[in-house]
Every structure is written in C-alpha cells, then in structure tokens.
C-alpha cells in the first residue's frame, strides 16, 4: 500500500541544519528498507498559485488553496504493507523533521 506523509508546519522557518541531517538519515533508512517512493520539501505557501478551469474561464489566484495558519511544508510518498508499519515510519519521520505528519493512504 502507498501512503502520503504530509508534513504540517505553522511557522515561516525552514528546516535547521540538525533537522536536515536527521531527515537525511531517515531518507536513507526509507531507501534501505524499501519504503521510499518519492519525497520533497515545498517552498513557502505564498509561492503557490491556484488554477481553476472548471468554468468558462481559467481563474488564476495567487497564494495557497487554504488560508490557514498550518500549511503543507513537504511530503513523502512511501510504500508499506499496512498502517502499523506506516505509522511507525511516520513517527520516525515526525521526529526527524520535527513537524507534525498526516498519514493518508492512496486509493
């Protein structure tokens, strides 16, 4: 099963050098254990643009889709046999990047 780990943050700061180092260790472990699919850190939410082309005209809006204090700072896509494994990995990931993580299964 594949899971999306969404990294949730509520401040403007990026990862510290210590957090970067811990994330690298965590990523190495994901690869070694066969869980790694993809991962990435995202730029600050103000760099986002929302496109809505459901109607007649394409609407372009500056900023993230949700106006909120908490925002998506990065993510992992991992492969795990069940939720218990995914939650254990997310626990390690949360400790490593020092942020909250939402674990959500892919369909």
């Amino acid at each position: 099963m594949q899971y999306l780990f969404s990294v949730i943050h509520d401040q403007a700061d990026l990862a510290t050098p210590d957090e970067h180092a811990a994330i690298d260790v965590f990523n190495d472990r994901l690869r070694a254990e066969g869980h790694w699919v993809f991962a990435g850190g995202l730029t600050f939410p103000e760099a986002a643009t929302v496109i809505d082309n459901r109607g007649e005209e394409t609407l372009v809006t500056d900023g993230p889709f949700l106006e909120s204090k908490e925002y998506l700072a990065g993510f992992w896509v991992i492969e795990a046999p069940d939720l218990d494994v995914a939650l254990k990995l997310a626990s390690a990931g949360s400790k490593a990047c020092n942020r909250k993580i939402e674990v959500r299964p892919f369909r």
Partner: protein
Amino acid sequence: MVAALTRRFGDLDIAEEAAAEAFATAVERWPADGVPPSPGAWLTTTASRKAIDRIRRESKRDDKYAEAQMLHGNIPPEPPGAIDDDRLRLIFTCCHPALAVEARVALTLRMVGGLTVPEIARAFLVAESAMGQRITRAKAKIKAAGVPYRVPSAEDLPARVAGVLTVLFLVFNEGYLATGPDTDPVRHDLTAEAIRLTRLVCALLPEDGEVAGLLALMLLIEARRPARVSASGELVALGEQDRGAWDTALVAEGHQLVRELLAAAAAGAAPGRYQILAAINAVHTSARDMRDTDWSQVLALYDQLVRLDPSPVIALNRAIALAELDGPEVALATVDRLADTLAGYHAYHATRADLLRRLGRSQESRAAYDKAIELAGNTAETASLTRRRDQLG
C-alpha cells in the same frame, strides 16, 4: 465466529454480515429441520458460503486474483488456541489507536460484544443513525487505511493493551454512571458487558497484570452497586453505604485477584495504575465499617499511583485519604493547590465543602456545596450534595 470469518476474508463488514445471515438462516431452519449435529461448524460453513457469494457479487476484474485466493483458502477446524487468537486480533483491531476513542468503543461493543446498533446508541445517548455512521466510518477507515488484522508485536503490546483497557473502562464507567430507577436498563447492562469483555481479555492475556487489575477494579466497584443508590434515588457515599448489601461473591473474587497481583508485585513486576486502583478498592472493601479502613495503606497506595499518574483528580482522591490520617486542615491545603486545574469539576468542590465542614467553616462549606451542586447538574449526586449542604444549618 466473526473473528474467524474476518481472518479468512480480511473484511469486518463481510464477516459481520455473513455471520448475521447465517444466524438468521439457522433461526428459520433449525426449528423445522432440527439442530444439526455440529451447529458451530454448520454456522461457520453457511456463513462462509454467504461471504463468498457476496465477494463474487462485488468483485471487479482486477480483483479476480485476490478473490481466487480467498475462495480457495479453507477455514481449518479450530484448535482452542486459534479461536482465542482470532478474538484477540479482533479486539486489538477494534481498539486500534488510529480510530477515535468513541469509534473504538462503538466498534468493540458491536463486533466483540455483539450488541446491536440500537442498543449501543441507547447506551451512549446518541441517535441510532449517528451511531450507525460512527461504526460504518470506523470500518471504512480500517479498510481504506490498511489497519492490519493481527495481535500487535511484543514491543507494541503494552501500549496497545493499554488502549484496549481504556475502551473497556470507558464502557464500564458509562454503565456505572447510569444510576437511578428511570435509567434505561440497557445502560445498566454496560457494566456487565464491560466485565464480560475484560474477563475475555484476561483469559486471552493471562500474564498481563494490568488486565487482571482492571477486572479486579471493575468487580470491586460493581460489588458495591446494590448499596450505591438509596431508595429515593440519592447517591450514597462510601462512608454511608450499607456494607451488608455488597455482593460478597464479587468482593471475594476481586480480593483474590488483588492478592495474586500483590504476589506478582512482590516478585518484581511493577504494578500499573489499574492494579493500584484495584488494591485501593480492596482495602476499602476489606473494612467492615468506614472507621475500620486502613487509611495509611490507602495513602501509601495513592502515593504510588501519583508517581505513575500525576493527574489532579488522583491528587484530589489522595487528599481525601490524607484527611483521615493528618486531619482536614492539612488535606485542605493540598486540595486548594488544585484550584486552577479542577475548578470545573464538581467533586473538587464537594471535597472542599466536606473538609471545610469538618473544620467548622460553615459559610465557606455552604458556598462550596453550592458550587458542587451547580456543576454536578441533574444527577443522583445532586440530591446527596443538597442534603449535606442543608444539614449545615
């Protein structure tokens, strides 16, 4: 049987529906056809057929391989250990930490306890449709998120067992709070159901002291039920209960369990909170009269408990024991320190009121009783608190 079907078909919904249909068929057919020689096997076989039918109806092209796997597996005849394993797996799945606590409670009562949705809804004073949705969503999450159907590994077991015990104690407390002659009888049944399920978990995990501790605690609390509510519907405090009305069999069983736990503790096993709470209740239920209570033992146990769980409610209960040994003034000092955290808790004000009364500070006591009554709302406790306040004169 639901547990075995869940193991075979990997789906709580299918297992539950198939089991229900098999029972319904039995109810229809057995009165006319006679009970089959092996009713358990008949039910399991019938339920499996119905589950397979449903899977066939629902399976899509790309699921054919998975379907074939499920259809060709067999449910082997169950040696005793296997049934227990299935039930354990079911309990741990229903109590998975990824589910909200209220979902765990509802799912456990439905899947392990076998209560109907209307019964569970009535027990928790929730609309039937809302309770049905809660259970449906919990099952959907288990399926979609890939909650595994298994007993947790040894390193995860303590935390996961704690989760199960939390659910069971919540069910017990929900039944315990249902007092008074007008209460829906289903709510009374909750304590019995909680005890039954805890006995089951105890039998399945005989080495776990906390499970036995919770069972002992429940038995010793339930033993006092006949004396807890007066004829007029008032809640009777421990000190005023007719101890002759206590259920001696439950007390005896509770004491036996506590003795065994104490022996294990002496051999080095560190007691958890349920074991300590059970021991406290054992000290209380060993006394013929409130005055005979071994308060220094109670206090020593609370000292142990506070180290494990620094919650203010435990500190409050410890203070009540402290009052018996060091007097109400010392106890009041410790209680007053809890003002910030417990200001909204009626028992905090009731405790203060009692201590102030014993110190002869009637006006302050009255004010504290007023606050306690206001916060207690419309429960059997209100009548008892009102009477005490009015007795202040």
